[in-house]
């Protein structure tokens, strides 16, 4: 067995694992309208940008112009919310045409979306609905992810979504569900560490044990974000700073994966670019802590 596939404890090989052959792009943020005019004076604070695919697929105007400028300055990766890979019907072909065109236009090294369904029966929910953790869902999603990746010509990453309800029919645990899908699809994993934390709070599991149960060698990108704690539930808002516990969980993850492309996601109450840079620095520091923990095992 390749020791890089070990999931109990820090990775034990002497070089950072190759993330499905993809480079570590460093630390980035999402390209958001709130920063269209200020990002450029802080370009040195970020190593790459992620775009919400749907925000740029259908539009010209300022968003498109800013994207072209960004693509000339940064590596760009795509992250979608409307693929609905777990929907009853296959992903919309018109959507895929525009998505593939955007991947080519910005020369994205990979693209991602969520392990969920976001539309069904011709209606878009514009939200991420959880799938049941079942063999039927694994078969459906893995087949579609494999085909999608082949058609796109670049790696596809599935993100572990936050979810607030677990169906009675879910026969499998979440980590097994994720593992089975990405391994059968031979695709990458976009590990959202904040989602792990939120789900652990909402469903009562140990987030560290969950991460150790994942196929960490397939983690090509990590998302970090803030959330909202309500009396009965924790909501994944992407509207607040990353809390220390999630930074610690991220360091724990990096100790096991080695350096991974990491993004700070912020979609609501978006702060200034200076705050984004400062928050990104906190993530860099947490990554350094994690790297230090794992260094003995993976540093040459």
């Amino acid at each position: 067995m390749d020791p890089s596939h070990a999931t109990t404890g820090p990775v034990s090989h002497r070089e950072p694992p190759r993330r499905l052959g993809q480079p570590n792009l460093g630390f980035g943020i999402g390209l958001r309208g709130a920063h269209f005019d200020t990002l450029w004076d802080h370009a040195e604070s970020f190593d790459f940008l992620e775009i919400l695919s749907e925000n740029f697929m259908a539009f010209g105007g300022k968003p498109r112009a800013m994207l072209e400028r960004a693509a000339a300055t940064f590596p760009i990766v795509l992250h979608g919310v409307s693929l609905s890979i777990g929907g009853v019907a296959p992903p919309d072909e018109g959507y895929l045409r525009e998505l593939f065109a955007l991947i080519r236009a910005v020369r994205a090294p990979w693209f991602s979306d969520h392990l969920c369904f976001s539309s069904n029966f011709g209606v878009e929910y514009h939200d991420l609905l959880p799938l049941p953790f079942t063999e039927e869902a694994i078969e459906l999603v893995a087949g579609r992810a494999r085909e999608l990746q082949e058609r796109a010509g670049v790696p596809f990453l599935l993100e572990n979504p936050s979810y607030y309800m677990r169906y009675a029919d879910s026969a499998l645990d979440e980590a097994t569900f994720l593992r089975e899908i990405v391994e059968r699809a031979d695709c990458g994993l976009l590990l959202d560490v904040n989602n792990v934390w939120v789900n652990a709070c909402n469903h009562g599991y140990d987030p560290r044990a969950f991460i150790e149960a994942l196929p960490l060698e397939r983690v090509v990108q990590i998302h970090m974000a803030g959330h909202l704690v309500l009396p009965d539930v924790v909501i994944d808002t992407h509207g607040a700073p990353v809390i220390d516990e999630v930074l610690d969980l991220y360091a724990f993850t990096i100790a096991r994966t080695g350096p991974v492309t990491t993004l700070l996601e912020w979609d609501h109450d978006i702060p200034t670019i200076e705050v984004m840079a400062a928050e990104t620095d906190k993530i860099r520091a947490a990554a350094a802590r994690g790297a230090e923990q794992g260094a003995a095992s993976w540093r040459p």
Partner: protein
Amino acid sequence: MASLKDLAETVHAALRRELDTDVAAARLGVDPARLGIYRGFVHDHVSGILDKLYPYVRAHLGSQIWAELVAAYFREVPARHWELNACGEAFPAWLDARIAAGDGPGVDPFHVALAELEWEQFVVYMHAATVPAGEHLEAPVLNPTLSLLDLAYPVVRFIVDHPEVGDVGPAIPVPAAARRLALLFRRPGTWRVAYYQGSDDLLFALKVVHEQIPLAVAAEAVHQPIAVARAAVDHAIAVGLVLAPPDFAAW
């Protein structure tokens, strides 16, 4: 164990508010409160985008009527497009049909015209065309982001008179019906959308440039001195409706 399709049907019915949350939650074996979170999210995405796209309509109708409209729109017009803003596109026509059906207490045909303008503002803002700089032009051209709307009310005047949406409320009277052309385009060198009511001189300039009519010929056709024709085109250039090369004087 329910099939994926069965599960999706139950979730769909709950999200579309066609099935009571408790009933759906029992079928799915989930906490009704947690299912309710998704019901709220899905509805709020639509209401949020309508709030964003139609701020003047919302402000002029007031919060109660607006909330009733949004709830009815959510029920009657499911989102069909993966791009969130697109789910607001049908709102003006839906509003019009609702009024025609006598199902729109508190809503006036003026609000349909206002909604048409607000939607078009979004379309123009996101227009795929690039507004070229004058030095890249060989002859005057129309702004490629230009959109003409034939509206049943003087909506541009209404917005010019109330430039801050915060100043608009139900107490402001609905203007008298009067058919007006509205011109919308992205202002050159900026990303802002300009609105102009279709005045005689702007419409004259639009025709002259669109059809590339020599100024002297155009002036003669409308029995005006060429200086008047030139002033009309200059005005159109000044506001960004017409884009011209720096040596336009030689045209």
